[in-house]
């Protein structure tokens, strides 16, 4: 009877020991987060921001944006009259010579 009680308390202490060890392992795994206090007040961004771009860069960007426009003549209406007939040499202006569509 006394031996059984001794075994129970031993296993309880062993269980506590394992729990403490696990907690220690978990805590050491958070090394990067130690001493870090995340700001949890909701509001506006208060950290560093992008330095911004110059007027010249804006100009260069505007030119690039225009470059996305299709070349003139590409949007010709595709109707039977605008397409060359079978075997004909005629090509639609602005297209590759052998291209039919």
């Amino acid at each position, binding site marked *: 009877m006394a031996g059984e009680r001794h075994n129970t308390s031993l296993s309880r202490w062993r269980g506590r020991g394992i729990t403490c060890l696990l907690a220690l392992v978990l805590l050491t*795994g958070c090394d990067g987060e130690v001493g870090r206090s995340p700001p949890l007040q909701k509001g506006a961004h*208060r950290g560093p921001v992008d*330095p911004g771009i110059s007027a010249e*860069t804006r100009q260069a960007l*505007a030119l690039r944006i225009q470059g996305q*426009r*299709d070349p003139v003549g590409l949007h010709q209406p595709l109707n039977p009259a605008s397409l060359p007939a079978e075997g004909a040499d005629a090509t639609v202006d602005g297209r590759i010579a052998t291209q039919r569509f």
Partner: protein
Amino acid sequence: MARMKFLCDSERCIECNACVTACKNEHEVPWGINRRRVVTLNDGKPGERSISVACMHCSDAPCMAVCPVDCFYQTAEGIVLHNKDQCIGCGYCFFACPFGAPQYPEGTNFGGRGKMDKCTFCAGGPEVHGSEAEFKKYGRNRIAEGKLPLCAEMCATKSLLAGDGDKVSAIYRERVTARGFGSGAPGWSTAYGPKI
């Protein structure tokens, strides 16, 4: 200059995934993370269309609204950027984003996600322009070099347009007029409001 915006003309997208590849290569995005994806709508059905999706840099960005540590901000051009030093990887922005743009590089046994990563419109982040730190955290800063996002610049069919919202929508309108029908520009109204 008005706000910078993305527009995907689904009538032109041929699902080549060049935008995805270009983005990954330009920013050296790690394995398992895609800042941009090509999504097929109505797959296998009549009216099937593909669109290229990434962070749309929304006018009223929901990610900014839900972030508990306010790590998001908008630049003067309307580009939505975030500070990785402030991000706690909570994942709120992922749940708020209608486009599924936020990505998380880690998946640990303890549920850690790592710092959130997303499309920066090739505008880097809150670091010195062109610095090593900026490249490592956010990728290349093409905007500071006067260049547009690479995904749009190298789109073979010019399906993906990027830049000043007014000019981009004007280009799209010209196309719609020329071909006689629109593609609906999927995602535009969700990100920027109903008008195009």
